[in-house]
């Protein structure tokens, strides 16, 4: 059990009110989740409900000549079969930023798995069999599958006649968005370099692989509208995309968040939402749609696979002179979040380093590959693998220690980013590296059992595990490091606000707060933190979390590490307004009884109104009596601005988040099998509102980075076909693949953020991957320019 840090160090204590911020309070949904009673979107059930099923394209690119649904409709138990021709309004596309995604294919399919028709039947198997009877006449078209085929002069255009707001500045219509960033004088800086290293790196297509499949229940309502129970990351964004296609005003599409079985970016885009509503409105019956795992791989966007070309120079003493890079992200058939991913990849491509002279270009392509969009780390993951690989290469070229090189060039508060934006809060990059390096290394040869005299081998501790492929022969250890930078919140001028409603009343003689937001709880523990904030701000013990729905204003997305910052900020802001109202009521009702009502700074603590000197003036319940304070407010973080389209300059980001990893691996060099022994992380979180959740996020993010390093890739062939859409062939880390993950948490407050907190969910996903690969390089001496690293990359076979 060596190396396990069960309790994080360096965490501040909580506030005066029990269960407030800084404490590891338990999840309010914990009991329901361990008893099986928590209702996930796939658990929804309604009397007389039908099952929906989606027929998807077997081709990556084809013309649809005709669709014949008659045999499917004739099957007993089938209630509806809908195609493009059945869509009720002129609005037939949707999309997060660019409305380029057809609800159902019209005349052409652009990727393997694109929805073509939908079926509703009385049993899921009936719906599946009916879908098989739909006859679609496809005429395959040439497939655009990489940059060369996408930007060739005669390349088939994925979206001819584009009129989106990026169309005017891209070099080719199959480029979704291009963002250059130039700063300083790269040629002059290059001339000062004693060494120059360059490299071409590649990141495979990673899947979010949330465990709860896409699912939901659409119930037609008497007013002609629909009630939709669904797992998503952003209710109001869904609503904005769903209502126009249905031809309904937004108030007639009432959405309630169901239990969400993980998200990691994969629920930012719509999946079954519109299809379920269309079938429910057509049949007049509730319709449930649940994807199975095979369909889930086609039902959501993935992490952009990327090719990255980098050049760094340095003087002999290890100072980096300049950086040039070009990042090509494959966005697949539809835009999804590609433009924002380009913005992140370009603006964070330099990594957490001080480099004044840079030339950066990032593009996202339209191809016939599966659409790619949001996944934890969002453009910063791909860049981090490349720049950290370059740091290893540069250190080797200089004959320097790789951590020393990183620390020497590490950014800090006050550093100017390539975008010209100053990093204006703590950026403890060098300190995070120092911390992971200072940790004791795990003991060697842990497979050798120490409690027997002979040489007993526990193969479970070796690469290959119970496959019993080695007893230690050919096994080499390596240690590697990496550090990364992630932006927090929506960037580039987006109005990234959230809304919170807080109600304070007296129940059974006790003050009880109710917090109502539209925040999607996807597992991250936002509901826990909201209750903690309400306790801290209102001094109450009892807090109820109202189910998330569209009856309250938007909370923005549960992504970009932003919810604790932004919706947490909105809850804090609204609680402050509620507190003022309570004090106002108190002054009006009880002010004459004590002069402190008028003169002292007043707080709410332990269910009472107290002075800052600790004197109790009244119980909150006595102030409120039967009055109810109910306030809904919006809250915004400080504004950002777009990056200039030629220079990339602009105050584009809200906040940055930093993590560093040290990986210890053991490699069976004969078979190319890797076992990660330990993956230590140090991260600055500004303020840990719930330390246990913070550590859980870091360990979970770290493990997803490990998956990308050595296991996870959606394999797409040159015909654009997905080859491994299952958990049999797409491998995510099991408990046997995952090492101990010691976590060291720093809390250096960001003065601009609520409680000084730093959005922290994504940063650990960045540096985990390059740290593992760096450790494999150290063990094998191989260059390793692509992730995931596969056995054949290590054995050369």
């Amino acid at each position: 059990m060596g190396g396990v840090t069960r309790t994080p160090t360096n965490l501040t204590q909580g506030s005066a009110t029990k269960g407030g911020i800084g404490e590891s309070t338990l999840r309010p949904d914990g009991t329901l989740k361990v008893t099986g009673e928590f209702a996930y979107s796939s658990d929804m059930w309604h009397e007389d409900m039908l099952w929906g099923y989606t027929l998807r394209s077997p081709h990556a690119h084809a013309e649809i000549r005709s669709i014949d649904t008659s045999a499917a409709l004739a099957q007993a138990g089938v209630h509806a079969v809908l195609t493009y021709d059945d869509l009720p309004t002129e609005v037939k596309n949707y999309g997060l930023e660019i409305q380029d995604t057809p609800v159902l294919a019209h005349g052409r399919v652009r990727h393997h798995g694109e929805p073509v028709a939908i079926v509703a039947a009385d049993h899921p198997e009936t719906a599946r069999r009916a879908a098989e009877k739909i006859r679609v006449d496809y005429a395959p078209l040439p497939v655009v599958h990489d940059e060369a085929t996408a930007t060739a002069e005669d390349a088939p255009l994925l979206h001819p006649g584009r009129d989106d707001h990026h169309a005017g500045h891209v070099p080719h219509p199959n480029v979704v968005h291009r963002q250059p960033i130039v700063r300083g004088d790269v040629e002059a800086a290059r001339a000062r370099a004693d060494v120059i290293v360059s490299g071409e790196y590649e990141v495979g297509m990673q899947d979010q692989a949330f465990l709860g499949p896409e699912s939901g229940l659409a119930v037609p309502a008497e007013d002609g509208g629909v009630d939709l129970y669904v797992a998503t990351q952003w209710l109001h964004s869904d609503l904005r995309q769903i209502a126009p296609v249905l031809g309904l005003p937004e108030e007639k599409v009432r959405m309630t968040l169901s239990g969400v079985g993980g998200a990691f970016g994969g629920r930012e885009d719509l999946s079954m939402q519109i299809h379920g509503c269309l079938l429910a409105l057509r049949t007049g019956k509730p319709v449930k749609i649940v994807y199975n795992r095979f369909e889930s791989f086609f039902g959501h966007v993935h992490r952009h696979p990327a090719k990255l070309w980098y050049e760094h120079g340095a003087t002999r003493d290890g100072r980096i002179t300049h950086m040039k890079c070009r990042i090509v992200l494959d966005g697949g058939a539809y835009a999804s979040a590609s433009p924002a991913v380009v913005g992140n990849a370009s603006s964070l491509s330099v990594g957490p380093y001080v480099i004044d002279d840079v030339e950066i270009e990032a593009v996202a392509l339209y191809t016939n590959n599966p659409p790619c969009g949001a996944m934890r780390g969002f453009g910063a993951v791909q860049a981090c693998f490349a720049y950290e690989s370059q740091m290893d290469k540069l250190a080797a070229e200089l004959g320097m220690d790789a951590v020393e090189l990183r620390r020497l060039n590490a950014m800090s508060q006050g550093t100017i980013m390539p975008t010209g934006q100053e990093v204006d809060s703590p950026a403890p990059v060098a300190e995070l590296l120092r911390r992971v390096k200072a940790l004791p290394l795990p003991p060697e040869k842990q497979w050798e059992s120490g409690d027997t005299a002979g040489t007993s081998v526990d193969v479970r501790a070796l690469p290959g595990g119970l496959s019993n492929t080695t007893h230690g022969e050919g096994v080499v250890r390596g240690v590697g490091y990496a550090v990364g930078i992630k932006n927090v919140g929506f960037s580039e001028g987006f109005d990234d606000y959230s809304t919170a409603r807080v109600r304070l009343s007296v129940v059974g003689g006790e003050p009880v707060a109710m917090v109502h937001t539209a925040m999607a709880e996807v597992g991250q523990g936002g509901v826990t933190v909201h209750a903690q904030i309400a306790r801290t701000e209102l001094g109450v013990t009892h807090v109820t979390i109202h189910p998330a729905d569209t009856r309250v204003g938007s909370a923005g997305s549960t992504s970009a590490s932003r919810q604790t910052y932004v919706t947490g900020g909105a809850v804090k802001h609204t609680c402050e307004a509620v507190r003022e109202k309570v004090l106002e009521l108190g002054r009006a009702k009880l002010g004459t009884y004590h002069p402190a009502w008028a003169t002292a700074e007043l707080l709410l603590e332990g269910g009472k109104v107290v002075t800052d000197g600790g004197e109790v003036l009244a119980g909150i319940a006595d102030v409120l009596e039967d009055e109810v304070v109910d306030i809904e407010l919006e809250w915004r973080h400080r504004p950002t601005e777009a990056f200039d389209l030629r220079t990339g300059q602009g105050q584009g980001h809200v906040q940055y988040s930093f993590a560093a990893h040290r990986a210890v691996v053991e490699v069976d060099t004969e078979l190319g099998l890797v076992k990660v022994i330990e993956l230590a992380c140090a991260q600055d979180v500004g303020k840990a509102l719930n330390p246990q959740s913070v550590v859980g996020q870091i360990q979970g993010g770290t493990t997803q980075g490990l998956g990308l390093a050595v296991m996870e890739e959606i394999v797409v062939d040159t015909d654009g076909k997905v080859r491994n859409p299952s958990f049999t062939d797409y491998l995510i880390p099991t408990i046997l693949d995952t090492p101990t993950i010691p976590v060291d948490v720093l809390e250096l407050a960001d003065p601009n953020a609520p409680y000084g907190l730093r959005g922290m969910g994504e940063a650990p996903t960045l540096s985990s991957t390059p740290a593992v690969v760096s450790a494999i390089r150290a063990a094998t001496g191989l260059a390793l320019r692509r992730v995931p690293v596969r056995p054949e990359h290590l054995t050369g076979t």
Partner: protein
Amino acid sequence: MRVNFRVNGRPHEADDVWEGESLLYVLRERMGLPGSKNACEQGECGSCTVRLDGVPVCACLVAAGQVEGREVVTVEGLANFAKDRAAGCAGGACGGTDLNAARQWEADPERAERADDGAVSGAGAELSTVQQAFIDAGAVQCGFCTPGLLVAADELIERNPQPSDADIREALSGNLCRCTGYEKILDAVRLAAAREESQTAGTGA
């Protein structure tokens, strides 16, 4: 077809079952027991793990007809199953229902209120040691893998009351979790084993 089997100690009957339906489908869609989860439906993720005559199995890979006349324990019945085991009547050997269990249909506003309150989550319901340990250790995030992990972890501690870390990893290697990185799941199983151990020692059993 009709299928009769015992679920969580009680006889159940499912009618109009299509021969291709899995045990998982029948539990979730026909018996109102959606606690066993449908993450992959191909036997790879373990989130539908149930006990079938005591043996942990993926309910998605068991045809409904195969469970005719047999005994199934799901996450919904785990707390009672663990309680019966502690009382020496696991597997439904003691057929009766105790008074408290028989009264579970009664409304209990206090319990509901306690369950609403994040600070004391879990205090209101009667949970097995493994269930409580998962809450306390922070092993639950999205929770979709949790039911299967609980059934598997409970079975591990039943047959190996003091598992080493290697034992825990081996026993839970068929259960995927995407949120936690497994560290807090290990913490939870260690905690549950230690609590079981101290309870056993405390009662002199």
